[in-house]
């Protein structure tokens, strides 16, 4: 007590000082409250209002994110007594996250199934906003406590979103699996954290002396703790072997939620992973297992497992789920060769992937709305009925596969060059294996991506009846996305330059 008293003032001032660097999150919190209250006040009819408020708020938040760039010109800032770290790349991650969530918030109501939910969607909006808040924390967290907190926050929000459509058995089942799996893995993570804390005596992993402390401990013990923590992070990233939940959950959740799950938390998780790993990878003091090799192995296995398993899927969402696993594996490449440059490449890749994935799922929704198509077979011959949507679909899938002239290709290209750059110095065989696997799985991925155009255009089928309700917004969205993808395919530097 007494030894703390003198410190109170300056620690308080530091706290207040930190708030300046924390504006977006503050506004997010406020936004959350506002949305929640509008929901409470206007009850059932609040949906439109919540939507408007939430989206508008997100725009504001993005603006604030942009403003933060001015704060980090002189390097990063540790705020809230080392809880969070605000750096340039982090701001980018936040921006991307906000942008995507903005799109997703718009997208929620366009899905007929989700929209048909009796209890209304307004709660979903408040949950989503809260999760965005959590994501922001995730991006910035550098303290074991904040990390754990952020992850839990996002997880809980996600559980709720997945299980949101209570009247739908699939959604509920997905929710159950998700929550059980998630709770278990986060519990493991907590155990790992406790061990790590125990071994290092501090929660601030970002600090040099923390790692020093660890280096004093038997590597086996520290690596065990590390592995347990990685389980927790991996659960958000969904790399092998913590990916089992993904297909079921993605399939079960309503499509916009799937779009959400498969993109934003993943991006944040990557940011978190980078923040978490960099002290271990850069200060040469980490005595545990070799991170880069470990992640190479994980990456290779993940790519293979994801892409190869996707080949045999028939349900669109399930297929995309597997493919997203594959993409995680691919993105892990950039983590293996962690460096400032690779971070920006990774950011680009994730952005592109996320856009494409959202587009794909949006189109899945579109076709589901129009014709109730869920499986690939249901798409037979739709291509000529819905030419625009189908063309967009093709473009988006091409981008996911990573063929020119789409952003997906440039993303792959840059990741490869990042890895190559390191390979030239180190001649680390794992990197070569990573790249080879990456290319191989690209071919494999075509196997299943091509199924969709195949059914859309190549298969013939006399048309079934067509629902008259046209989801134009989705069409616009997908057109927009595919346009962006092509644009980035031709002029990647427009984005990548700034990253």
């Amino acid at each position, binding site marked *: 007590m007494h030894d703390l008293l003198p410190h109170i003032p300056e620690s308080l001032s530091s706290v207040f000082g930190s708030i300046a660097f924390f504006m977006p999150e503050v506004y997010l919190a406020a936004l959350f409250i506002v949305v929640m209250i509008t929901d409470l006040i206007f009850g059932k009819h609040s949906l439109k209002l919540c939507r408007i408020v939430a989206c508008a708020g997100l725009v504001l938040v993005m603006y604030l994110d942009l403003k933060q760039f001015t704060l980090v010109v002189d390097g990063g800032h540790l705020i809230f007594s080392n809880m969070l770290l605000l750096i340039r790349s982090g701001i980018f991650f936040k921006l991307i996250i906000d942008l995507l969530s903005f799109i997703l918030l718009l997208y929620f109501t366009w899905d007929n199934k989700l929209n048909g939910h009796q209890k209304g969607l307004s709660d979903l909006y408040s949950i989503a906003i809260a999760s965005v808040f959590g994501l922001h924390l995730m991006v910035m967290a550098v303290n074991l406590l904040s990390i754990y907190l952020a992850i839990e926050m996002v997880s809980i929000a996600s559980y709720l979103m997945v299980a949101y459509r209570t009247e739908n058995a699939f959604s509920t089942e997905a929710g*159950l*699996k998700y929550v*059980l*799996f998630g709770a*278990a*893995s986060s519990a493991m993570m907590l155990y790992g954290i406790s061990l790590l804390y125990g071994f290092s005596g501090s929660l601030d992993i970002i600090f040099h002396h923390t790692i020093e402390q660890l280096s004093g401990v038997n590597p*086996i013990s520290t*690596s*065990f703790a590390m*592995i347990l923590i990685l*389980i927790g992070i991996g659960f958000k990233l969904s790399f*092998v*072997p*913590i990916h*089992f*939940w993904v*297909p*079921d959950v993605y399939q079960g959740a309503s499509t916009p939620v799937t779009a959400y799950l498969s993109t934003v938390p993943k991006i944040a998780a990557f940011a978190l992973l980078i923040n978490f790993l960099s002290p271990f990878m850069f200060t040469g003091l980490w005595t545990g*297992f070799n991170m880069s090799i470990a992640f190479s192995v994980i990456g290779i296995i993940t790519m*293979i*497992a*994801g892409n*190869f*398993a*996707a*080949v*045999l899927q028939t349900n669109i969402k399930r297929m995309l789920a597997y493919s997203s696993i594959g993409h995680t594996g691919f993105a892990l490449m950039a983590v293996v060769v962690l460096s400032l440059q690779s971070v920006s490449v990774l950011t680009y890749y994730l952005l592109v992937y996320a856009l494409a994935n959202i587009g794909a799922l949006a189109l899945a929704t579109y076709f589901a709305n129009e014709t109730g198509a869920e499986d690939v077979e249901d798409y037979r011959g739709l291509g000529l009925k819905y030419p625009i949507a189908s063309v967009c679909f093709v473009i988006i899938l091409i981008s996911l596969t990573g063929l020119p002239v789409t952003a997906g290709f440039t993303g792959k290209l840059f990741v490869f060059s990042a890895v190559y750059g390191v390979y030239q110095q180190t001649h680390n065989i794992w990197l070569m294996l990573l790249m080879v696997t990456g290319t191989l799985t690209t071919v*494999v991925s075509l*196997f299943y991506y091509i199924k969709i155009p195949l059914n859309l255009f190549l298969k013939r089928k006399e048309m079934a009846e067509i629902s008259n309700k046209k989801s134009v917004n989705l069409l616009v969205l997908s057109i927009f996305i595919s346009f962006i993808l092509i644009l980035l395919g031709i002029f990647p530097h427009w984005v990548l330059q700034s990253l």
Partner: protein
Amino acid sequence: MEDFLHAIQSLNYTVAAVALPLLAALVNFCMPVKSKAAGWISTIAILLSCVLSTRVFATVWNNPQVHAQRIWFTIGQTQVYAGILLNNLSVLMLLLVSVIALPVHIYSTAYMKHDDRYSRYFTYLSFFCFSMLALVVVDSLILFYAFWELVGFSSYLLIGFWFTKDKAVQANKKAFIMNRVGDIGLLSAIIVLFAQFHTFDVDTIFGQNGSITQSVIKNGLWTGPVSQIPALWQYIACVGIFLAIAAKSAQFPLHTWLPDAMEGPTSVSALIHAATMVAAGVFLLGRVYPMFTQTELTILACIGCFTAFMAATIALTQNDLKRILAYSTISQLGFMILAMGVGAYASSLFHLATHAFFKCLLFLVAGIVIHQMQHIKDDNNLDIDPQDISNMGGLRKKLPITFVAAVIGALALVGLPLTSGYLSKDGILIQAFEWSDGHNAWFKIIPLMTLLTSWLTAFYVGRLIFKVFFGEFRLLKNNPDVKLHLSDGNWPFTLPLVLLAICCLFPLFSFNPFSYEHSWLFEGLRSSAHSTGEDIYHRLVPISVNVISLLVLFAAYRIYVRESGFTFSQRGYFYRLSYNQWYIDNLYKRIIVNPVLRLGSACFWIDRTVVDGFLHLLARISGAVARLAAWTDEYIVDGFLHLLAAIVQSIGNFARKFQSGKVQYYLFSMLVIVLLLFILKILI
């Protein structure tokens, strides 16, 4: 200066002479298929080129060769030229081809009159003339090869002219592919030569002290002025060229296409498969003569000799009029090759010229006969083969002009005095003997066999003539109610015969009907080294040949005329002589005819089963290989792909095995994997 102008002029004439038929061909191609004008266009064209080539011949013959070329295209550093090379050899051929072609054209106008693809026929014919004429004058091996194949191509077209006849189609395919074998040989030879001498120019390679003469084969290397390659390739080049010759001029073993080629119109056979194209091989041999070494020449001689003998024996037993002639052509070509082999360069070409005339004549005769038979067949629709000589007989009264022409041609073919054939053939025989003196005794076989062959020739020619023109019309005998009105046909039929018949007599070639060495043609072509030796053979050979030939002819007469002739001879006379007759005939039969015939049929059998059989075997083998390849493609190469797909699927299935849908199972497997990884890490 004078010469230079002449040269220019003759060059222009040559070009014109070559181009005219092509022009005709093009014009005809654009004509409606039935138009009768086509015939005249081609005929006039060939007439003109005939005149022109005569002029050229006149200016160039026995004068220094004219050679002009301009650059065709450049490839790498090598510049490929296209040009014209006029020397005795080429102008002779030029003249020969055009002169032979003219009557054939005239003849064709009548012969093909009723065909409903009349203008096509003349298109092809003119095209052939073009390529043949070009072939003989070009100076670059590439061009030579080009026209070499074009000649084959046009013959392909003409053989298969009646392409609805399956046999015709089979025949022309066979012809083309067999020729292709030769072409490949030629091509590889040309490539070898190019690789060795870095040029395609005939003159620089084979001309006076050309590269060939400067290059030597020493210790396994063929060293030329510019580069050297393993000597093996010199042999391969020669083999290639030999293949080409064998294919074009139907030498053993690539000769079997020629008899089949008789499916084409007879006029075509006359021009292409008797006179000109088949001679191209010999011409080629003449062009590249310097590159053959002694041993290679000897081999050539043997092959030529064998071919000649074999073909002659086969001709003995044939009943198809045109086939007989075809085989005789083969055997005559054999003579020429043999001549080349034994170094009788001049005689060979001499024989080429003479043979062209009389064989063409004979074919035209055959054409008329067949034409008439065809008429009979059509008029009182019989089921007979119009070409089968066993149906004919006694036509000499009905077709007098034809008969005379035929006899002249036949005599020339047999090589009796006063005919051109006598000059050339005896030349060959004599020189063959002279040559064999230079070698050990075994080589005597060659001239002797040649001698024998020429007697056989006499026999089958006799058989042909007697069966067709003497005796009585067997067809009439078998079915008496046929009404026949036979005639030589109008002038387009007869005129060519007359022309050619005249050309078959000695004056055209030499004023001394008994000495080939005095014929201008021989003198123009023989190498300066050649000595006009007055040795025993100059007496012996002609006598032996002619005397025995006459005997043989007589024998043939006895057999084929008198045997069937007793019906119209008086009884008494018949009884008196019957005994001897029987005796003589039997004698002939037992001693000459039967063995000969047996031999003939044996050879024919070999020809059909062994040689052709071998070819068919090849075809079958390649077919089998093809099927094998297809199978490989379908099952092995593609199978590999499917295997890959299967692997992908199985990996995918493995990954999916975990997706049992049971969350605890997920957790369990997750933990197990993590644990295993960790333990692994500890152990490593």
